[in-house]
């Protein structure tokens, strides 16, 4: 049988933000389509429209040339569209078999779950990856006990268990080892031969060239190019993703012209390893704004948390020439290190407490006993006005503030401590444009006062516009260091995708 899926002029808005303004793709039986784009290009939104996770605002989906509409992933499944989700969709406490057959368990006499049938079918599915997983993994173990690669295998088996005609692999290879990827690709070739259509989303350039037949490139929410893989090179593909190097004049005050010699190193890291990091080395100088780029989830978060003493690590970290290994964030704070975490509400704020208490949380010990409240209000108000915080009163709960203002509170609590090293985990995510501009000015001001900043951002433009030097992370390692004239969007994107050396040159 043959099948085809076509997405035409898809539009998707989240609130006022247009994530996708003109998304197009076509995929047919017996081919693998690579869906490619940089951070924020709209590729994950487009896959979510196709598999029914979000409902489109405009445009048309055609399945076998007939218009289709669905309002849920279940509806998409019924139409034969299966997805291997990047953020795994498994229930931790349930077993492998229960997860795979969740909500569509084979029944006996139409009532009872047929346990035997489930077991046989699960065994058959697992057989597809035979030999690439541990012996301890079988249909009856709870998935919470499985390592990431085996979880990914279960997720893949779950997606194909109802025999879909169209399979979306969204970063399905990210946690698989070489053998497992090889097996998956063998399966993909088998599916092609069976007449299935496959959409392949990956951040690994090498894999895209290995398995895909055609490509579709998204940029800024638009499909900008499609074609056959055999007609394009890696370098050309990166250029399509980047477009013309946007002339970006954020507020780049030509830092190079300061003309002073190199400043002393404030923070040095050698061979840092955690569960995610595979040996990271870097050095940050006094007054330097060091960018940390790359696609999401390449170890940026782990690096910042490890430096802040929140997760254990192996390797050597020196602050001002002194070797340290912080057992707890409070020890890092004592060395004048501050962290603005990536998840504002879960890691940065005390939602129902006042703005004052949020600002003062790391600083209360400076206010004596009993706490001198008047002085804390004075200091809080000073920081609030420095940051141009829009609020009625310091005693209002912090969750009465907008996203940008809440982020200012998190930054404000560290400004009170006058940090020497500031670690920022994507601080402008979900922040309005005006506030972003204020942040950029603040960061530059802090640097000119001698603060060293490591600035991770998922917004490539932001990194290019602000930083003197950018480290690009890829799969737990630093893939490239860009500095001076080498800072271009093309190079940043190429390194983010783990592109080969020549396309970085």
């Amino acid at each position, binding site marked *: 049988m043959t099948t085809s899926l076509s997405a035409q002029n898809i539009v998707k808005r989240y609130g006022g933000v247009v994530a996708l303004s003109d998304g197009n793709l076509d995929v047919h039986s017996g081919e693998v389509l690579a869906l490619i784009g940089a951070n924020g290009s709209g590729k994950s939104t487009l896959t979510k429209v196709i598999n029914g996770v979000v409902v489109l605002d405009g445009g048309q989906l055609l399945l076998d040339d007939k218009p289709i509409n669905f309002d849920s992933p279940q509806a998409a499944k019924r139409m034969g569209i299966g997805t291997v989700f990047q953020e795994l969709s498994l229930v931790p406490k349930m077993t492998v078999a229960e997860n795979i057959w969740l909500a569509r368990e084979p029944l006996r006499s139409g009532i009872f779950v047929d346990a035997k049938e489930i077991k046989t079918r699960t065994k058959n599915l697992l057989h597809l990856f035979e030999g690439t997983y541990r012996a301890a993994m079988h249909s009856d173990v709870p998935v919470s006990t499985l390592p990431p690669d085996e979880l990914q295998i279960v997720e893949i088996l779950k997606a194909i268990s109802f025999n879909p005609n169209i399979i979306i692999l969204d970063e399905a290879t990210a946690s698989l080892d070489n053998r497992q990827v090889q097996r998956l690709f063998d399966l993909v070739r088998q599916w092609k031969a069976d007449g299935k259509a496959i959409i392949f989303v990956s951040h690994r350039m090498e894999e895209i060239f290995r398995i895909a037949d055609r490509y579709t490139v998204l940029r800024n929410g638009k499909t900008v190019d499609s074609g056959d893989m055999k007609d394009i090179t890696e370098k050309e593909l990166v250029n399509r993703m980047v477009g013309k190097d946007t002339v970006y004049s954020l507020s780049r005050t030509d830092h190079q012209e300061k003309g002073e010699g190199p400043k002393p190193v404030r923070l040095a890291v050698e061979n840092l390893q955690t569960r995610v990091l595979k040996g990271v080395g870097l050095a940050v100088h006094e007054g330097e704004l060091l960018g940390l780029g790359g696609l999401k989830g390449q170890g940026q978060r782990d690096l910042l948390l490890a430096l802040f003493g929140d997760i254990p690590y192996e390797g050597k970290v020196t602050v001002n020439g002194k070797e340290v290994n912080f057992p*707890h964030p409070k020890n890092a704070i004592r060395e004048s290190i501050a962290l603005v975490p990536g998840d504002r509400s879960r890691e940065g704020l005390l939602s129902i407490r006042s703005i004052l208490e949020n600002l003062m*949380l790391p600083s209360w010990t400076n206010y004596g006993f009993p706490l001198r409240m008047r002085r804390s209000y004075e200091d809080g108000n000073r920081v609030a006005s420095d940051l141009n915080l829009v609020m009625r009163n310091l005693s209002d709960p912090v969750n009465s503030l907008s996203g940008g203002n809440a982020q200012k509170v998190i930054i404000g609590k560290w400004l009170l401590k006058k940090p020497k090293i500031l670690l920022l985990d994507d601080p402008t995510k979900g922040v309005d444009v005006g506030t972003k501009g204020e942040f950029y000015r603040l960061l530059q001001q802090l640097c000119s006062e001698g603060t060293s900043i490591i600035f991770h951002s998922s917004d490539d433009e932001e990194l290019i516009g602000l930083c003197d030097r950018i480290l690009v992370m890829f799969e737990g390692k630093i893939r490239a260091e860009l500095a001076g004239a080498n800072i271009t969007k093309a190079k940043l994107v190429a390194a983010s995708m783990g592109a080969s050396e020549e396309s970085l040159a």
Partner: protein
Amino acid sequence: MKKISISPPVAAVLLAVILFIFSGFLPNSFGTNTQVAISQAVNIIRLSVFLGIIAAGQTLVIISGGEGIDLSAGAVVTLSAILTWTIVLGKDERVLPALVVVLLVGALVGLINGAGIIFLKISPFVMTLGMSGVITGLVIIVNHGNAPGRLAPIMTRVIARPLFLGIPGAIIIYVFFAALMWIILERSTFGKNLFAIGVNRVTAKLSGVNVTRMVLATYALAGALAAFGGFMVVGNTQVVFLNLGAPFLFPSIAAVAVGGTLLSGGKGSYFGSMAGALVLILISSVLTTMQMIDAVRQMVLGATLLIIISIYGRQRGFRQ
């Protein structure tokens, strides 16, 4: 339209006043006799002191979040009362050493609670319930319920009798105790960190708060406060028995809830718990005056609790 909002502690105090005035119109009550009314009010407040002090530790652990609760409070009250009774042996000069010992023992019990909760990851409900059983069993094994001992005259004089201008000593102690609790919660780094871990432990840790140490300290302090409650209770009852502390346990949790402290942690006040204790004591006193049988008293108390807490729940719903 401006919404009239009354904070839960104020609401609880208002409720107490209304209940008190209502109780005046009951048969055999004070009616229009101000003299009797005042002495009746003082007596009610005096009675609420003991529940109020036992609810102090409960307030702290509930504010600390993580499903915090101290079900060992009742057992600690009994343990502390019996210890006081046996150590003092009727001698005034042994009262202070006895107080120090019971506070330390209470703190140790709390510390073990905290350690089980934070290191062994046992839920506070299970951990403190188990601890309650252990203590009760220990008390039975050690003295079979008939401890030799006697209270010192000074304890009776200070706790159970009028001390100054006709005001019972217990109330005077309560005022200082409340001031201390306020300073701990609102004017100390410990208090600020306590609210912080109650709202969000990840944020607290990433802001430099040592969550482990805070949980240990909170449960230890709660144990010491419950022990102080036992010391006060025995000073009032002047006898000890095995079931002395247990009847305080659930009212101590109810008092915290009526006082508007969020049971999920991170928000609340000790004044709320004091007002809550007052309301609970008043309701039960009114019902006694009305000569209700015990079963009816239980029902009315339970229903009142449900009503009050559901009203608070609605208010929060409106605000968000």
